[in-house]
């Protein structure tokens, strides 16, 4: 396990002590990233509670696009296994769903349960990359944004617009489904697009059965969401400055806090791969990063501590996208490295020994 303090190699104890000193002296520290196993994120929430820090996961934009829509109007959702088993019509919105192997798996199989069992599956795309890798019927959106295109399609589904346009044809296909699913990424279509999409599904459910399959973000956002909920009763962007978890997505946006000079220290937690924020070197900061990751270097932050990577050099509970649950992944390497949770617990212990205001 390597560590650096102000660019110089240090032992872990010295780095932990420096991190504790930095955080205990801060007025409004912020913890960002939170792309780690559940134990590490839980340790981060506990430390934030102790020192009055705020938290903001790297998954924030996509997570809040989904949550904003969910909080305002609910959601009609399904799972990947249900989609594979029952869907006779699948609409893929945007480009990101095509990145993984889910769409090709859907396109290459047939429904095996329900009203459509044994029938051919129809795969449609709206605003997709048109790369032709899987069998599907593509509907372009021109220069329109995805959220505008979803609204345009919804107007046809509702019967408020009519005509020979492609959207009319697509609306007819969707209404003819026996069990339909829309696959999308909330971070790509935004909160407005997600809310419009859920409205589209409500309209389609007046005639048939149609559900959403939102893709999880790649930065453990859904695990963080669950942990934040059972720990604070709130969504992840909370601050503990006033001795209770206050939820405010605007106030506790880490990039805003740094840009407006409100944060005076930062802890970036990324034992799993996550994009390093460009503001990390603009203020006194601590980076807890996966060993052998591109960020495991002395200039990543003022204090850098490397830890085991869940599922590789350490075990840990992480989000399982396919099953839609938090699951444990064991270490695959022979030597099990120190964990992020352990390092954060040590920092918290040092701060308690110092008697920092809390």
């Amino acid at each position, binding site marked *: 396990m390597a560590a650096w303090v102000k660019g110089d190699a240090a032992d872990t104890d010295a780095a932990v002590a420096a991190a504790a000193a930095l955080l205990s002296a801060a*007025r409004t520290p912020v913890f960002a990233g939170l792309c780690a196993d559940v134990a590490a994120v839980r340790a981060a929430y506990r430390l934030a509670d102790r020192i009055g820090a705020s938290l903001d996961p790297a998954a924030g934009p996509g997570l809040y696009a989904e949550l904003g829509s969910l909080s305002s109007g609910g959601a009609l959702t399904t799972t990947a296994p249900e989609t594979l088993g029952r869907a006779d019509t699948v609409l893929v919105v945007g480009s990101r769903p095509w990145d993984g192997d889910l769409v090709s798996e859907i396109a290459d199989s047939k429904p095996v349960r329900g009203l459509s069992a044994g029938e051919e599956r129809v795969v449609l795309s709206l605003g997709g990359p048109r790369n032709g890798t899987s069998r599907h019927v593509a509907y372009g959106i021109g220069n329109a944004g995805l959220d505008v295109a979803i*609204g*345009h399609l*919804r*107007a046809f589904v509702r019967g*408020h617009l009519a005509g020979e346009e492609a959207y009319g044809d697509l609306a007819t296909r969707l209404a003819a489904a026996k069990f339909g699913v829309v696959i999308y990424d909330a971070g790509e279509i935004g909160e407005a697009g997600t809310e419009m999409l859920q409205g589209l599904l409500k309209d389609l459910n007046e005639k048939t059965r149609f559900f959403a399959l939102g893709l999880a973000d790649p930065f453990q956002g859904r695990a963080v969401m669950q942990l934040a909920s059972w720990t604070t009763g709130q969504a992840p962007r909370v601050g503990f400055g*006033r001795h209770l978890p206050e939820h405010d997505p605007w106030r506790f946006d880490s990039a805003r806090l740094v840009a*407006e000079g409100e944060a005076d220290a930062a802890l970036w937690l990324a034992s799993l791969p996550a994009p390093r924020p460009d503001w990390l070197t603009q203020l006194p900061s601590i980076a807890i990063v996966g060993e052998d990751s591109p960020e495991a270097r002395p200039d990543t932050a003022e204090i850098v501590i490397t830890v085991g990577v869940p599922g590789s050099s350490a075990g840990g509970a992480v989000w399982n996208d396919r099953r839609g649950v938090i699951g444990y992944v064991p270490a695959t390497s022979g030597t099990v490295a120190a964990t992020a949770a352990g390092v954060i617990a040590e920092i918290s212990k040092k701060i308690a020994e110092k008697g920092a*205001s809390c």
Partner: protein
Amino acid sequence: MSTLKLRSEPPERIDLLNINPLALSKMSEADAARIPVGTSRRGLTLGDVFSIALDGSDSLVIEGGSGRLDRVGASLSQGTVRVEGDVGQRLGAGMAGGSLIVTGSAGPFAASGATGGTITIEGDAGDHAGGAVYAAKAGLDGATLIIHGTAGDGLGDRMRRGIILVDKAGARAGSRMIAGTIVAGSLGAEPGYGMRRGTIVAGSHGALLPTFVETGTPDLVFLRLLARSLAGLRTKHADLLKGCMRRYSGDLATLGKGEFFTPAG
């Protein structure tokens, strides 16, 4: 007239939720100075941030603003609050009555959930002025919001009642609007995204959504009544309605009972 004079730029965000003329009228200056307003573990109080002079009146002046002063005039029910400078987020949030004036600019979510009274911002307003905060059912909900300068994106997002007058606003004004009225000198692109009902009037505008359809240039009594009611608030906005107005109906992706008016000329 009671006065709070800002000592210096606050080192952290300050929450003024409970600081209004009615609450302060029952307090001594010493008691008021002990009200916690800080948002960090340092426990800043009103007396740490402001020098305080109270006279028990229903008028409060905050001298020296800052973009870090949040929830100024929030939940105000009567009296007047005047801020000589800028304010932060959620100006007048949940306000039920009275008058709130800011001579500078306001942060995001001004007048969110305000059900009554008048909020005047003489400078600019941030994004989502008159808009809903996270998980809120409605943005502006009956109050009157007047912005002399420029508002950001999402003006009146999910507003349910009330009037917003603004010289200029960014993209997606009136998005997800439930009802109410927005009158603007100019608006950015895609006004009224997802609006269900309500009225938007704009002297000029950016690209319209494909889910808004033109319904002609009807001579509506409603527009004359609206102009008359606006004349007492801001003449320049009332004048917008004097000529022939082109009407669009939308957002057809939703209920489609909203309307968007712009000069026909």
